């Protein structure tokens, strides 16, 4: 497995509380991504980063924010968690987005339950 870790791996929280998920890489890859995986929806991109302090929105960014202050860390924050954000969250990294170096490597996932 590529050097990608996610923390926590499991979390149960209550509606309205803030939650931060962390993705850490040791590969020095430029691109980092946050996805959520839901039955019937597959993987949907939440936010991504193309460098330190450079981020952009994905398909389902409402209710989420991200930060990347270091190459190796990409944080996903749910400002006020809702039950619709119960999901499995995956982080991914890639060296580039073209030219054969665009393979995305995925973390192990974080299972988040919002009660």
């Amino acid at each position, binding site marked *: *497995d590529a050097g990608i870790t996610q923390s926590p791996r499991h979390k149960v929280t209550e509606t309205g509380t803030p939650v931060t998920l962390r993705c850490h890489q040791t590969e020095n890859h430029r*691109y980092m*991504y946050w*996805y959520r995986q839901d039955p*019937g*929806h*597959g*993987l*949907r*991109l939440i936010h*991504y980063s*193309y460098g330190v302090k450079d981020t*952009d929105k*994905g398909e389902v960014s409402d209710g989420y924010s991200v930060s990347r202050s270091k190459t190796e860390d990409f944080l996903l924050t749910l400002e006020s968690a809702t039950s619709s954000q119960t999901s499995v969250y*995956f982080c*991914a990294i890639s060296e580039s*987005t*073209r030219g*054969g170096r*665009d*393979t*995305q*490597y*995925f*973390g*192990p*996932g974080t299972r988040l339950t919002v009660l």
Partner: protein
Amino acid sequence: AQRVTQPEKLLSVFKGAPVELKCNYSYSGSPELFWYVQYSRQRLQLLLRHISRESIKGFTADLNKGETSFHLKKPFAQEEDSAMYYCALINTDKLIFGTGTRLQVFP
């Protein structure tokens, strides 16, 4: 809009049978397409990409621009092929995934 469609949520076959997981796409331009796989209790990982035109674990996929398809095929399924399969295409800096097809291979 760029889109990837996997019409089958579940595909069940017996060991030794041929397998075809369907993927259709809509994309303006020349698409770069991929198949990713998630085995039970493992991370999502790249299976193959259309540019390399290689066969991985006996799977192949041919890009058909006329039918806008990128179906994944294997002539003889094995039990260890049971997994979740996602078709994806690159759109600028992002991957767009389909909703996935679960392949079950029975002994």
